[in-house]
């Protein structure tokens, strides 16, 4: 199935008035989460971090964009330059870029993953549409797993 077909199918389901009311606030929250994922992907790519991190962040952003389509909400353009990064990634990316060893890089990337996890946790408490909650839940879980692995690589307590 093509992305366009998926978005149309989702829009048809969620355009019903009752669902639209239930979604109040969810689009802005999903947009914020997607932006954080794209910021993280850009920071990882610029710093030469392990590729799996940027790939996962872009996969998350794509899944969140699909949700926005289903919510009949705009999908904002993605950041292209490091100067465009926003918090929380903007404040954490310099340490990643400055890391000089795999252990330092893992430690800095773990901070970004923990920040993304916390961002998801905050929104999970507020989201309303069950399907959106479940999808954001899997993104949250991904950051929890990545943070644990990176902390282990950095010689920190992974739990």
């Amino acid at each position, binding site marked *: 199935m093509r992305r366009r077909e998926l978005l149309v199918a989702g829009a048809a389901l969620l355009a019903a008035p009752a669902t639209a009311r239930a979604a109040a606030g969810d689009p802005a929250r999903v947009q914020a989460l997607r932006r954080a994922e794209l910021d993280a992907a850009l920071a990882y790519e610029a710093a030469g971090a392990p590729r799996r991190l940027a790939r996962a962040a872009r996969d998350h952003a794509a899944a969140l964009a699909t949700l926005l389509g289903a919510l009949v909400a705009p999908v904002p353009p993605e950041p292209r330059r490091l100067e465009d990064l926003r918090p929380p990634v903007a404040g954490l990316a310099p340490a990643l870029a400055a890391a000089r060893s795999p252990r330092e890089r893992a430690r800095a990337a773990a901070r970004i993953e923990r920040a993304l996890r916390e961002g998801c946790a905050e929104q999970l408490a507020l989201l309303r549409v069950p*399907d959106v909650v479940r999808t954001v839940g899997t993104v949250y879980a991904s950051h*929890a797993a990545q943070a644990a692995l990176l902390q282990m690589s950095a010689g920190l307590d*992974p739990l």
Partner: protein
Amino acid sequence: VVTRRVLLGAGAAGAGTLLAGCGARPPAPVAAGTLLDRALAADRAALAAYRGLAAQAPAGARPLLARMRRATAARARRLRAAGARAGAPGSEAEPARPSAREAQRREQVAAAAYVDVLGAVRGERRALAAEGLGGAAEHAALLGALFGLPTDTAFPGSRA
């Protein structure tokens, strides 16, 4: 084209919208209490899979495995405190032999059970489900790292 990976990540949302788009009826919702019961059963199954696993692990990894086992037991206790009911005795059997792969699989099943709970509850129960989901996903990833098992960490808890 939407990749399979992204579709799986969209998880239940993707499934629901796709079903609606195809004219099929989405599955009937399951009661939150039933989903909590299932999460508890999954946690108990994961807990059983840790028994004997330390003997297979490098000595340096055993303290971490012990903490993971205790954390899984704590997840189950919190679910009980939230009203989840355990299934019939014996429904969460130990594997025939200690197996890291089986422990990882059971943690992944637990993560999926928590994702189901997330969408059905709000407030403190949702926070509880998120905590459980994060823990199960961490454990599945760490078991992969400790025992050299492949682990897909992009969308833990999504159903293949």
